[in-house]
């Protein structure tokens, strides 16, 4: 089970209302390589992986949910004071007529989240390679977001998130090596 903590993993400070930036950030909220996809992917794979890597998938999945909350906070703060006109100008007119000022799991292009973004193969090496790729794609997306954003508060949080994807990728690669070592040892006997 999970217990809610009334705090963010890392502070989110927004400099100005900026619905256009919020729209771009939705890529990491409900997009294919976003935080929701990451959290759900690992949380679902963990049941059938070898015991050695269950902890890692559980812990990284839990952290991804805290990243999701950071993204939600950014999007909320960037749009809460925007008028319908401002939202429309930022390309969020269609979002507004369907969702008002509320958030939704969709990507920067407005495409709703789908489970087809993620996979679970019942093969730990295949799953972990997908996880490594997911982290690298998320890292790249954060880089593009930093490149396009001029909000210093948002960029600070995005840099933190980008570095976390690096660490997750590294840990997943170590997990692959742990499983390969075990497999090779079994062959010897």
């Amino acid at each position, binding site marked *: 089970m999970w217990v*809610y903590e*009334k705090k963010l993993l890392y502070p989110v400070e927004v400099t100005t209302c900026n619905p256009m930036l919020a729209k771009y950030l939705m890529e990491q909220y409900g997009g294919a390589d976003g935080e929701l996809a990451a959290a759900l992917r690992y949380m679902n794979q963990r049941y059938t992986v070898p015991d050695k890597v269950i902890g890692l998938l559980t*812990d990284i999945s839990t952290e991804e949910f805290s990243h999701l909350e950071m993204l939600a906070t950014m999007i909320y*703060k960037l749009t809460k004071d925007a008028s319908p006109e401002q939202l429309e100008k930022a390309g969020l007119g269609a979002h507004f007529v369907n969702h008002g000022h509320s958030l939704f799991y969709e990507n920067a292009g407005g495409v709703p989240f789908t489970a087809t973004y993620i996979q679970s193969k019942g093969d730990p090496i295949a799953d972990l390679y997908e996880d490594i790729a997911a982290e690298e794609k998320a890292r790249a997306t954060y880089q593009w977001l930093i490149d396009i954003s001029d909000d210093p508060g948002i960029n600070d949080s995005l840099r933190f998130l980008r570095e976390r994807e690096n660490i997750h990728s590294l*840990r997943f690669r170590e997990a692959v090596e742990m499983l390969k070592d075990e497999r090779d040892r079994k062959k010897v006997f």
Partner: protein
Amino acid sequence: MNNFDERVNLLKKVQQMDFVVVEWTLYTDTHPNDEDALEQWREAIKEAAVARKQYENKFGPLSLKSIPSRQALEVGWRWNQDPWPWQL
């Protein structure tokens, strides 16, 4: 320092210390025999608990795993009370 600034500063301290725990936890997940890392992980958990207690004594529990302090109850602390993390 006013109440709001103090709250934000103490919360940042909790966030920092909790993050160290998150980082060592992931590291020890893939380095289960690294005794030095395990020691630092245990130390980080202790330090995070100290920072959490400092915040919670004054501003109330961050989760329902903590007992509300007398001080927090006296100023009317309730779980269902803003600011929520995205409102801060």
